[in-house]
């Protein structure tokens, strides 16, 4: 089987087994790598931003340097840098300087992309507040618990539930759940429990 193919669109003949570092990239491969159209690359060449390929003809090939320059041109173009300014800049930079500048620009672009995915402070606070409002519970204890128990509030918890339960936090990690319809029936017991929860446990008989 031949290892050469013919691209019917461009009538370019290229070797599919070609090693990039040995032979370079075709304009199509270059376009694919940098994700710009072929016609854009030809435009950049015509504007003097990019040199033409090292070889002529249908199998014209582009080097790693072309690839680097083109990636940088793309980054600068995203920032709306005028063509003339890009031309001037690129004409003054060595290959190492292009690499360094490209690295900076790509890092900056990555940071901007990350920042765009991070919620703003207002969005962050809105999410917290929405969650707090959505799961608002009953008062967990009165403040402070008086000698005679106060009547408990009747706002139900999770109105969308079939059963309504009231939650009281007696201490960190200790909670009392009371079913809504048990309030009146068990009021004496409930008040005793809540009062008792405010009295410290007497360890060691002291």
């Amino acid at each position, binding site marked *: 089987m031949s290892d050469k193919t013919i691209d019917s669109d461009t009538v370019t003949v290229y070797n599919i087994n070609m090693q990039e570092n040995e032979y370079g990239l075709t304009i199509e491969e270059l376009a694919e790598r940098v994700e710009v159209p072929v016609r854009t690359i030809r435009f950049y060449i015509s504007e003097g931003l990019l040199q033409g390929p090292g070889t002529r003809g249908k199998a014209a090939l582009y080097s790693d340097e072309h690839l680097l320059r083109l990636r940088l041109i793309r980054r600068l173009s995203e920032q709306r840098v005028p063509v003339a300014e890009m031309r001037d800049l690129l004409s003054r930079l060595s290959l190492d300087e292009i690499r360094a500048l490209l690295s900076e620009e790509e890092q900056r672009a990555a940071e901007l992309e990350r*920042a765009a995915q*991070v*919620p*703003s*402070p*207002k969005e*962050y*606070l*809105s999410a*917290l*507040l929405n969650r*707090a*409002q959505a*799961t*608002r*519970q*009953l*008062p*967990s*204890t*009165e*403040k*402070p618990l008086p000698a005679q128990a106060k009547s408990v*509030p009747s706002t139900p918890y999770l109105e969308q539930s079939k059963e309504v339960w009231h939650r009281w*936090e007696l*201490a*960190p990690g200790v909670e009392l759940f009371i079913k809504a319809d048990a309030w009146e029936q068990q009021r004496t017991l409930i008040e005793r429990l809540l009062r008792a929860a405010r009295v*410290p*446990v*007497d*360890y*060691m008989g*002291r």
Partner: protein
Amino acid sequence: MQSRSGDHSNSERTGGTPVNVTLRMYPERRFIRTGGSFRYIDFYIRVDHVPTKVNVDRMPLTLALVLDRSGSMQGEKLATAKRAALSVLDRLDERDSAAVVVFDDRIDTVQALAPVTTNFKAGVRKALAEIEARASTALHEGWLTGCKAIASDTPPLRERSLARCFLLTDGLANVGMTDPEQIASEAAGIREHAGIGTSTFGIGNDYNESLLGPMAVAGGGQFHHLRTASEIANTFVGELGNLLSVAASQVRIEIEVESGMSADLVSAYWVNASSTNTLRQSITIGDLVSDEERHVIVRFGFPKQHGQDGQTVRARLVWMTDGSEQSSDWQTVHFSYADQRICDSELRDPKVMHWVGLHQADRAQREALQLNQRGDLQGAHEKLKKVAQEMEEYAGGDQELQAEVKSLRASASAMSAAPLPSPEAKERYYQQQSRSRGQKDYRKSGPA
């Protein structure tokens, strides 16, 4: 860099004024046992600042005042809280912005975020005059509403003002979320993601200091225990004065250890583990003013020796100045494995152990108080006794540490007899936390 301490300073400019922020790492000893050891490091932070006129060069402030208007605030407490809020606003100007929120079981934004102009102040005065005490305490939602009122639409790193929420309450949170650990976690998240710090003011004997204290620690702010209504104004104004003098904001220490090591924070600060690096932790210090210094004590655990000659602890300081994040270079302290004879003969650095002792005592008192208040009298007693014994071993001729040991023993006796009365428990908690964090007490005197 100085050879012993790994000193590193960074000079950054704030509105044309140099800000020098220094981190030094002082280990108690340098040798560690081949079978494993614990060692303390004192992370010393200092902010130098060329004195300037505060009102000329200071950072603008974005402030949320969140006031409890629940039923128990009726009378003098609410009246004084309102006066204190107005005192704070009177000291701000158009560079600053503020919002005012009141809460009971409903949350009302009395004044949305706006520059603190004369008209703004008059508007708040009029609005607050109409606020009366009402029902229960939706502290969590009230606080979040205040924070949201001052949250910006742009990332906090681009903001060039200091954002803080002042939360004043006299009672237990009893509506909405009430879990102290969850709320403290949210305070840490709000500080990190929204750049908004939280300072808490608990008034009287009924609020939960185990909620307000950690909220402020995690939120990079300060917790204040107010014994009477008359202390509200001084403390509000004192805290404000602190904010108006901030030279380095959102200060944190980032610490990296080696695999197998542990790090236990002794001082009263909030620690975050890194989500991407399990060997890195971040300790939230908060906002620092000119000439301020802090000691942060961490105890490191070292594993048994497995061929390596030692272990390394790295740290750096990160903070905000002029709206941009600054950091010091990473510093390193190396600990070398050695045999028992060498380890035993190495003396502990007395200056380091002085701060270790004070912070250990503070932590023990705070933890014992919580046990005591929950009814675990035996647990409180044992904790204090244990720490007193440890401190006796290294206190030596340090008179302040010796006095601390006596105080711990006295507390152990007091706490084993009965739960401390709430006023005393709160005052002790406040004193210990304040000392550990180098915090000023503004209750009687206001700002210095």
